[in-house]
């Protein structure tokens, strides 16, 4: 057993789901003990296994609850007023789910635009109180290695630029930015390949409180 074998045969997943033989299980555990660098991947997989079931249960519970709510309408006029009040007070539109993990890290990926002439789709919303942001831009689909990143106002005026950035091993560009210094309700992030000037990623980031 080696790292390549473990990855190619999804040994970690099979271990976590009890699909290895007793001998394979022992071999994997001993390999893990001798190669602590593999522990990180093991732990992440174990966390996903442990929590995704609960995440799925939570989603199903929410879905069942909303179906149940709709049953109150046809039960009669007496319930309509209280049901309407209940819906107004209790029902909430799903919040816009930004791609921000936290006030500080903003991940933008798979949002391609041929040009930045039109306003590109919203990629993230900066939370209030966030002073600095780490932008993680996924350019793994682009062939090039070097990229020019530019922050623009909604009218196309350049605000800040980062020329010739090299993507990391994961195909990402990581930039430290202060998006709200533009004092604009939104900014546009545009990424071009340095060699071809082709736009590979563009997104609007909502920075204002409105």
């Amino acid at each position, binding site marked *: 057993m080696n790292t390549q074998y473990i990855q190619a045969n*999804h040994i970690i*997943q*099979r271990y*976590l*789901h009890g*699909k290895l033989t007793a001998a394979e299980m*022992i071999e994997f*555990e*001993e*390999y*893990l*003990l*001798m*190669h*602590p660098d*593999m*522990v*990180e*991947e*093991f*732990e*992440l*997989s*174990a*966390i*996903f*296994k*442990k*929590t*995704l*079931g*609960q*995440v*799925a249960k*939570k989603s199903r519970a929410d879905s069942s609850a909303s179906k149940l709510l709709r049953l109150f309408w046809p039960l009669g006029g007496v319930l309509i007023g209280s049901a309407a009040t209940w819906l107004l007070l209790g029902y909430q539109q799903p919040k816009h*789910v930004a*791609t921000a*993990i*936290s006030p*500080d*890290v903003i*991940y933008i*990926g*798979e949002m391609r635009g041929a040009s930045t002439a039109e306003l590109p789709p919203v990629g993230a919303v900066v939370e209030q109180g966030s002073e600095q942001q780490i932008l*993680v831009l*996924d350019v*793994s689909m682009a062939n090039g290695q070097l990229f020019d990143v530019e922050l623009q106002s909604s009218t196309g005026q350049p605000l800040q630029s980062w020329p010739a950035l090299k993507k990391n091993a*994961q195909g990402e560009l990581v930039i430290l930015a202060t998006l709200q210094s533009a004092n604009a309700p939104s900014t546009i992030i545009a990424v071009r390949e340095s060699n071809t000037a082709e736009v590979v990623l563009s997104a609007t980031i909502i920075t204002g409180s409105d």
Partner: protein
Amino acid sequence: MDEPAVLVTQIANGNKQAEQALLSHFSRPLYSIVAYKCDDPTLAQDIVQEALLIVIQKARASAIDNPEAIAGFVRRVAENLLIATYRKNKRQRTDCSDEMDLHSHTINHTENQVSSEKLLETVTQVMDELSVERDRQLLSAYFFEGKDKEELCNELDLSTEHFDKVLHRAKTRLKQALALKCKVEINKQSLFTLLSVAAVICWLGTRI
């Protein structure tokens, strides 16, 4: 760092630094394995500490016959301790009268529950960030249901490259989210608890 087999030999010669190095090497991976098996970070911590103590004492006494197989020895010691603990707990459930033990275990369980909730919150957020429902289905089916990669690629009609990309990105996102939300730096400490390797080594250092 020297290989564990070499460290065992050095420990037999009285090398204290080799003892610390061996503890550093095995603490986290052993903890991860035991914590996963028993799903109890506190118990896992106890087991790991006890197991490594036994290993060090055996190494000092030159009682480890095959240093090359030290990983197997460490694993077996921890497994036997875990089995012994389960047997002891099973007996204690029928005739337990030590309220002090129950009370401390309850406190530890509450602390673990807080960590679990935060983990759940973090993973939920990572999943919510996925813009494509299919990617959420993929992760759930792979990690939770345990479906094979090939099966999932056929079922969801996607390439193996896309599959690998989604998996890799999800793990990367989780790492970043844990670092920011739970203040856990995955390269420094186990995710199963906020116990750091340093704390284990310090504790063992006082016992040995």
